């Protein structure tokens, strides 16, 4: 049975440390989230692709992935500090100093004393991590608006201003940007793209979102159908966006899914149905021909020759980087009517780098600036040099630039996605880990009668776990260390990559349950030197 006076006393004695740790952890998490530089990480990760660093950086390419250090180290050590000192304060300190004699000389049962103290620790830890999680959620929502809706990116902000619409409203109706030329221009500039690349990006984004929402609805419908079917695994029932992209015909079976997709496009259900049918046909053609599986982005070589343009380009070339050349975007290289080279997956990265370097040389700026704003590649001067150095024709280069811009923008978008479910599991896993740590401290606190010994064991074990985790994170390799710490049971990598993590969390919960129960039994039976 719970004892209110004991609870009150526990709160009075421990609230200060609780408050400090809660504030510190919330601030650090919020700080991590607010300072997350999606574009920066995305470009670093893109640059490091295929190198030894890509593994390390891959975790940084999403907002939640970038929080791994917080979940594995910072919040763990803060939690350990709280639980170790509080667990000591609650039990062994009162036994050692003898002040528990007063509590036990009143008609309060020992069992309710220890139960209340256990519950205080469990509930205070739970509340602490709930507040920390909510702070993170709030920070992300305030900074990126990505918790309750689609992230409000710079282009949406710019377009919202132009269209005089609410950012929030517009972020759910991107087709409104498509419909307005002025908004398109502003939005493109905001994302460091030209209108051409931005149009491709926006179209791609809308298409993806419509499929994503449709996939969710189809999954829900399938849940209703197959819920009681034992033969169906959860993953069989679930339809992911990728699966739907491969088999768009699934869309046609669900009116709700069509409606959702149509809403994203801002068109009628019938129009959307036609759009989907068109995509199905396109897929079938590809499958039927079964030639090289050409990806959409693969440039098709149809060079358009215009002598006048070429001359004009040469003139501007000599005039140096004049801003007026913007109107002569469609420029073609005379010699490159047939490309000397094909762009393939293998050489794409290398070619892009060469193009960037050439553009930088041509425009007399450095490569970083070009990488930050790939529209420089489309500058006629830059194009001229690039065609020479790479042997590609201008269309290929422009296509390549567009592709690079779109994919970089898309990876920024992806990085900013806030998967509430993943966040929930990260938060719950962290809470269970800290509860398991607290149960170790609490057990030591009830087992021993001397503060020093209890602190050494009840603080030493969780701290050792933390140190092992830290070493493991630093070395970034598995060499058996992971079997020596319970933080391994909280598998952030698996949670972030939607892998199998459930049993680890169950084990953490079990550790906490067993040790808290054992503490309760032990304390009611042990001899107290009071």
């Amino acid at each position, binding site marked *: 049975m719970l004892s209110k*006076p004991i609870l009150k*006393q526990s709160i*009075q*004695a421990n609230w200060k440390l609780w408050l400090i740790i809660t504030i510190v952890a919330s601030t650090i998490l919020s700080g991590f989230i607010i300072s997350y530089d999606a574009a920066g990480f995305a470009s670093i990760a893109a640059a490091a692709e295929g190198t030894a660093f890509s593994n390390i950086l891959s975790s940084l390419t999403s907002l939640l992935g970038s929080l791994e250090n917080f979940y594995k180290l910072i919040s763990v050590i803060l939690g350990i500090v709280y639980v170790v000192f509080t667990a000591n304060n609650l039990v062994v300190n*009162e036994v050692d*100093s*003898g*002040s*528990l*004699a*007063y*509590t*036990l*000389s*009143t*008609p*309060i*049962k*020992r069992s309710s004393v220890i139960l209340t103290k256990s519950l205080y620790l469990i509930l205070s830890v739970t509340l602490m991590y709930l507040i920390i999680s909510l702070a993170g959620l709030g920070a992300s929502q305030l900074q990126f608006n990505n918790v309750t809706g689609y992230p409000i990116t710079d282009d949406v902000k710019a377009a919202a201003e132009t269209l005089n619409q609410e950012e929030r409203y517009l972020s759910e109706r991107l087709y409104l940007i498509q419909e307005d030329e002025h908004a398109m221009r502003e939005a493109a500039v905001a994302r460091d793209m030209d209108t051409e690349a931005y149009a491709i990006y926006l179209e791609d984004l809308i298409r993806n979102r419509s499929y994503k929402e449709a996939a969710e609805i189809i999954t829900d419908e399938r849940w209703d159908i197959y819920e009681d079917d034992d033969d169906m695994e959860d993953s069989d029932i679930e339809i992911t966006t990728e699966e739907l992209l491969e088999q768009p015909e699934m869309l046609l079976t669900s009116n709700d899914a069509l409606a959702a997709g149509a809403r994203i496009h801002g068109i009628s259900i019938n129009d959307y149905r036609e759009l989907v049918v068109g995509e199905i046909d396109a897929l079938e053609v590809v499958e039927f021909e079964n030639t090289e599986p050409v990806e959409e982005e693969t440039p098709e070589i149809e060079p358009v020759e215009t002598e006048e343009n070429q001359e004009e380009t040469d003139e501007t070339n000599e005039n140096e980087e004049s801003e007026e050349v913007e109107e002569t975007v469609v420029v073609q290289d005379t010699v490159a009517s047939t490309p000397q080279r094909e762009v393939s997956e293998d050489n794409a990265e290398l070619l892009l780098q060469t193009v960037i370097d050439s553009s930088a040389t041509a425009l007399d700026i450095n490569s970083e600036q070009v990488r930050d704003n790939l529209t420089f590649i489309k500058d006629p001067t830059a194009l001229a040099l690039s065609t020479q150095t790479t042997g590609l024709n201008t269309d290929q280069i422009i296509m390549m630039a567009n592709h690079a811009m779109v994919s970089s923008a898309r990876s920024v978008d992806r990085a900013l996605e806030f998967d509430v479910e993943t966040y929930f599991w990260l938060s719950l896993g962290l809470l269970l880990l800290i509860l398991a740590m607290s149960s170790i401290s609490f057990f030591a606190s009830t087992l021993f009668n001397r503060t020093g010994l209890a602190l050494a064991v009840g603080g030493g074990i969780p701290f050792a776990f933390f140190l092992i985790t830290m070493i493991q994170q630093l070395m970034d390799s598995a060499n058996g260390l992971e079997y020596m710490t319970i933080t391994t049971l909280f598998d952030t990598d698996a949670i972030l990559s939607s892998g199998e993590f459930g049993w680890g969390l169950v084990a953490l919960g079990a550790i906490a349950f067993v040790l808290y129960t054992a503490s309760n039994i032990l304390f009611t*039976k042990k*001899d*107290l*030197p*009071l």
Partner: protein
Amino acid sequence: MAYIEIEHLTKDYGKGRGIYDVSLEIEKGEVYGFVGINGAGKTTTIRHMMGFIKPDEGNVSIKGLDATKSSAEVKRYVSYIPGEINFPGNTTGEEFLKEHIYLSGRGSWERAQELIELLQLDATANVHAMSKGMKQKTAIVTALASDADILIMDEPTTGLDPLMRDIFIDLLKEEKEKGKTIFMSSHIFQEVEEICDRVAVIQQGRIIEVVDMKNIRYNKNKEYRMEFKSEEAFKQFISLGYQINRVKPEDLQVFVQIHDEQINELIQSLKSFDLVYFKEIKVHFEDYITEVFKEDV
């Protein structure tokens, strides 16, 4: 059945430490002293009474309730002063007192204020900032203000100055008049002698003697010491046949033990002798205990 009954209580901590086969009976309304040197087993016995530790063998019952199994229920009738005092929480003395009175479910704040006044305690200080004496006073106020039927106290006068000790003894006498049962351990024989009805003596974990203080206070066999002026008189008196405990021939002194009924006879006999002085030798509990310990060793 006695009000508080300790039966064959044994707790062996090894290496000869612990208590062995301790049996005591304390009646309602009695003031029971528990004496012994440090480490004799006083605190261990008291911890059993409070249900803080479990006996290896034997049991303690208070008001018919098992002190170990029904520990929480027993506390409805018991107030306690621990041997080493520390208060829980981070509060002032006053707050602690109020909280404790509330938790005990008995006693009154008015009584506590009276006691605070009497003991000249500054109860507004934080309990952690208190000196040993202040803590002791606070503990005394806590125990007495909670108005329990039974008071169990482990060396309650440590840290008190002699004046405060007298006040405390008076307070205990008051409690005794109210019909409270008091069990207190002490190593100061004087205070035990002053208020206790019975005293148990514990040595090396075993009860070696239970002394009824009436027998010491109202002992009818008294000892008298006298010195004679002449050796002649000295020798003559010895020959009279009184029970003589000791003689000091060089000082011409004689120690005579005699029952109160015979005192007139002795005085008649002494009329014919030339005396230097004649006085009663008072027996104190302390002397008595010292004798007991001496015999034991």
